[in-house]
């Protein structure tokens, strides 16, 4: 599998490590009233879509960047590769 890194171009998937669902980027607020429910969802419950899925990949044997991949679980086609920092900033993070 080839991952088209947004900065480095096409790279072999062997250089990457997959962490899993990109929902891991959205850590719940631990001070929320329903923090326990939110953390149970965050820690244990995952959607298992047949189709488009967003995943976090780490370019360990490369520039050490975190990526958000949009991958189709039926065809394995990767339709989008973004830097996780850009995705986080677009969601309103400050760093």
């Amino acid at each position, binding site marked *: 599998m080839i991952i088209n890194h947004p*900065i*480095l171009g096409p*790279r*072999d998937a062997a*250089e990457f490590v997959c962490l899993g669902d990109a929902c891991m980027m959205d850590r719940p607020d631990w001070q929320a009233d329903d923090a326990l429910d939110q953390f149970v969802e965050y820690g244990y419950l995952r959607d298992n879509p047949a189709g488009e899925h967003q995943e976090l990949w780490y370019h360990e*044997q*490369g*520039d050490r*960047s975190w990526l958000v991949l949009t991958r189709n679980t039926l065809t394995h086609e990767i339709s989008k590769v973004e830097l996780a920092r850009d995705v986080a900033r677009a969601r309103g993070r400050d760093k």
Partner: protein
Amino acid sequence: MPEFTLTSAPPLAGINKAYGDMHLSAPHDVAIVSISLPLGGEDAALSAVKSAYGVAMPAVGKTATSKSGETLMRLSTDLAFVVFTRATPDAEPVVAGKMKGKAYTTDQTDVWCALQLEGPGAMRALERICPLDLMGFAIGDVARTAMEHLGTIIMRTDTNGWRLLSASSSAGSFLHAVETSIKNVS
């Protein structure tokens, strides 16, 4: 009190071998210092690099060499290596002094081993263990990748010249991987 005398020895010191149309050697006195661009202070750090080395920080995947011979390798958005020749173990203060506090610097000299592969057959040997498309490498291009599972930085120094950096802790295995590939094609 016994008196000890320590002699510094780079992990692959003395490697100097020819195989057919290829030549493999371990360069002497390679000093490596990383430069990290501080969050929010990227522009100041980039201009500090420009005034310290007289060349602009290259784009990711490219290198730039100063008049005094230091090579800047831009490895990722926020990280570059300065590679230069220095025999004494004080590479980091030298670079930190030039950066004037505008970037984070870390001495990387002892954690890397270096090999230089030269010759028309070099690409033939490397393309078997390097997952990147080396045909697409221009002179001066650099990339961080893995060869035989070992993290490697590869730079094209010339039409037939390649500089390889890998972890000093697995230097012997890295040398074995490169040598095996060379022997397989020579």
